[in-house]
């Protein structure tokens, strides 16, 4: 179980590096999408490991919310270059 968490954390570091390094805003948004999903999946895994349903429900809510905020932000950034 410990090994699985460690692997997930390592996978989380990949989009983090991408968000730090890449100057294109859409690449950053992609990294944000990836991180938002990965962190909420991590929350779900932790909730299963601890058998804690409260954290599990919050994990599901955050999993859906992360994408909602991403779409709101993308709509605004998309209109930046229009006159």
């Amino acid at each position, binding site marked *: 179980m410990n090994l699985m968490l460690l692997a997930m954390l390592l996978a989380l570091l990949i989009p983090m590096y991408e968000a730090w390094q890449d100057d294109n805003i859409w690449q950053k948004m992609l990294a944000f999408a990836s991180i938002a999903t990965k*962190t909420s999946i991590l929350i779900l895994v932790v909730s299963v490991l601890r058998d804690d349903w409260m*954290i599990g429900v*919050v994990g599901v809510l955050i999993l859906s919310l*992360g994408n909602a905020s991403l779409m*709101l932000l993308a709509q605004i950034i998309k209109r930046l270059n229009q006159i």
Partner: protein
Amino acid sequence: MNNTDILVIVSLLPLSALMLVLQVNPYHALVIRGILGAVAALVYAVLGAADVALTEALVGTMLSITLYAVAVRSSLVMRLGVVTEGETLSEEEMPEGFGQLLSELRTALKKYHVRLELVCYVNEEALEQALQDHEVHGTCLPSEIKEYQIITRIERLYEIFQADTTFPVSRWEDVVAKKLTQQAELSLNP
């Protein structure tokens, strides 16, 4: 879950916070703020504070970055008034020199992450009135020296354009003062 796991997860928080602090572009910083919010929600959930994690995701990430994006988008903009025949101006209708002026202005403003927005007016009087009423930050008028000249009432924009563009730039105060002296001379020597 032992202590090492928790320590590794918590150490992601200062890492993403450092990424956010080192970011220069405001829009990029907003995206990184979203990442920081996601990591913070993970840390709070792992530490057992499910309610705090939910609040961080709802308010700290979703609401705050959306509001900030709207605020940054509407404040980091230069409004340039132009005289056109129609209500709007499309890229195809633009004359050659005007396109060059726009691209030069955009490159100069891009260094400071400022957008350029065109506001169309029907005649020069309406344009001058708009500049006087603080509706636009600057105007673009045809000139004798180099096709177009820019008049701005913001000192900082004047400095930026003076340094980075080839088109003539003048302060609004100077233009008004020049006009007043011309009028006074005319009335003295009719």
